[in-house]
């Protein structure tokens, strides 16, 4: 693919599969074999099931606040799949598909949303940073990881995520500028899902699109159809190649839509109308990708049924395994602030334990 053909100043958008699953850009079908395509589809199924189950647990009072991903699967999975083994992923907080592709176990993800810090402690070798709640602040960490790679002469690159709301934040702009100045090997992906809680994308900026923000910092920017797995994959892969070749950072706007709520704590019917949501349902990345697989005889429907059943079982078992077994160890609250607990922390811990044990 050629970024130059999709100049964000001309408000162009890169697409390979249209919303009906039809190929609109034949030359850009990525060279992925059937196993790879099926894997991507399986990840989509997986994320939907994880979301659906989390929402239903939440309604049953078994789960705390949860940020659903439905509608954004292609933006997450397509981008993460373009990464190499040693690359770093720097998430915001709504990156379920990317986490799973990068090897974050579901147990960690559920444990995090269930309210235990151990969810953010990744298995050895999984280079995924913890969730970053302060909007856009994580972008600078990504830039710094890349700057360190340049200094150390390492070849890995960084993929960082931010939302449309995050593009209004100073940290977003400082991160892009630093990355450009120091040629930091980072791919910044804006998941533009059109809403920051209730605030419409239109209120964030009067720029025609968010990829334009790259222009002033002197780095390439592109708008891709974020519901098109192939477009997201291709653009990210191209940007990663650039970064790895020493050509510096890229900004990708994945134009998508959050079909669900911001989190389980809000009610999207208050700030957007049903018609808009229905229009976006037709552009669902899941339906589109599935149609492509069916049309190209990649998808075995028996496999699909069986896989769904197995994934549902796995998701339920994973949740149940943490549900009654994830209370925070009291010592853990204290012991990870410094390598060694300060005398103050030790005293506070000892006093509390002694209270619990019926002492002073």
């Amino acid at each position: 693919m050629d970024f130059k053909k999709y100049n964000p100043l001309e408000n162009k958008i890169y697409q390979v599969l249209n919303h009906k699953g039809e190929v609109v850009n034949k030359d850009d079908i990525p060279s992925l074999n059937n196993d790879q395509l099926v894997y991507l589809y399986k990840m989509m199924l997986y994320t939907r099931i994880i979301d659906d189950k989390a929402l239903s647990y939440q309604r049953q009072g078994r789960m705390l606040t949860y940020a659903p991903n439905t509608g954004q699967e292609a933006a997450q999975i397509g981008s993460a799949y373009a990464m190499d083994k040693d690359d770093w992923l720097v998430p915001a907080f709504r990156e379920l598909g990317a986490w799973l592709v990068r090897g974050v176990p579901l147990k960690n993800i559920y444990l995090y949303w269930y309210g235990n810090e151990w969810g953010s402690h990744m298995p050895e070798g999984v280079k995924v940073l913890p969730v970053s709640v302060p909007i856009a602040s994580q972008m600078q960490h990504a830039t710094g990881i890349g700057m360190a790679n340049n200094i150390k002469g390492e070849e890995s690159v960084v993929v960082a995520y931010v939302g449309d709301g995050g593009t209004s934040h100073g940290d977003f702009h400082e991160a892009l500028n630093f990355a450009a100045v120091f040629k930091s090997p980072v791919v910044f992906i804006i998941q533009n899902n059109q809403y920051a809680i209730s605030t419409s994308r239109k209120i964030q900026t009067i720029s025609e699109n968010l990829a334009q923000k790259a222009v002033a910092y002197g780095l390439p920017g592109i708008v891709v159809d974020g519901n098109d797995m192939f477009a997201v994959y291709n653009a990210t892969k191209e940007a990663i190649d650039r970064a790895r070749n020493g050509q510096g950072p890229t900004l990708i706007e994945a134009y998508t839509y959050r079909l669900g709520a911001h989190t389980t704590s809000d009610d999207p019917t208050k700030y957007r109308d049903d018609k808009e949501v229905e229009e976006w349902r037709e552009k669902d990345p899941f339906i589109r990708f599935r149609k492509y697989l069916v049309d190209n005889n990649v998808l075995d429907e028996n496999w699909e049924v069986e896989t769904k059943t197995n994934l549902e079982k796995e998701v339920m078992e994973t949740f149940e395994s943490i549900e009654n077994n994830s209370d925070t160890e009291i010592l853990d609250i204290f012991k990870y602030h410094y390598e060694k607990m300060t005398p103050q922390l030790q005293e506070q811990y000892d006093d509390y334990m002694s209270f619990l044990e019926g002492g002073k």
Partner: protein
Amino acid sequence: MANTLNIIQAINQALMVEMKNDKTIVVYGEDVGIEGGVFRATVDLQKTYGKERVFDTPLAESAIVGTAIGMAINGLKPVVEMQFSGFSYPAFNQIISHVARMRNRSRGQYNLPMVIRAPYGGGIRALEHHSESTEALYSQIPGLKVVIPSTPYDAKGLLISALRDPDPVLFWEPKRIYRAFKQEIPEEAYEIPIGKAKVINEGKDITVVSWGAMIPDVQKALKLIEKENVSVELIDLRTIAPIDRETIAQSVKKTGRFLVVHEAPKTLGVGAELISIVNEKAFLSLEAPPTRLTGFDTTFPLPRGEKHYIPSPERIAKTIMDIVKY
């Protein structure tokens, strides 16, 4: 080998020797490279260690600290400069939301070995925002360490300890006394432990605790009351977080009287915490109310007014005598 240096030179030497010992150290910020820092703390570092390890950045404090977080996660040891502590507020979010929390958030997976250096305090006839004493703001945040030296010897040893610490350290430098006096210190690397106060003078009538640029002023005050037959135990706190409670408690148990002198505003300042420590640990030894002598709860005045803000040796001397005569 010994050499005779002032505080700014001692800081420079600490960086110079430690960058040789530890190849993961990188130094960056505004004007720290080619210029060597507006106060010359980083002078010649770029010449010695190259532009890859010592460099100037765009003027954005948040990104200076934010990128340092990424560097520390990725195996380097960034030493970043906030040109003045009063300019550190754009980085407040990164410091409080991430620097302080990454180890705990990741349950020990990502510690952040990094040092944030900043000149702090007033008395140099500077413009607005160049004179703040911000140590209390940062010392309340779990996960941070805050260190303030008052001599060249301590500046070098404490900075080397900070550079070897696996956790983030805010190293606030008393710019009023950057060049006030010189001291003979070892040329090679040595450490002074973080979290340990220093008893400068032993005494038995009153404990006076201070830090940074106020230490020489307290020493001047002691000269003023030399003939009064008051035995003062002077303690340099050196680390503001975590506070060395033991040294203070032991001292007050001996003297029965307590004064803390600091430049930052009074209300909810570090002095308030020290008095709580005295109350908790040495209450039954007290002969007089533990007392604070501090800056006012006002904005730091522009140069024509700053001499009123910083507690003078005369005020310190009078306060000591008031407590002793209580």
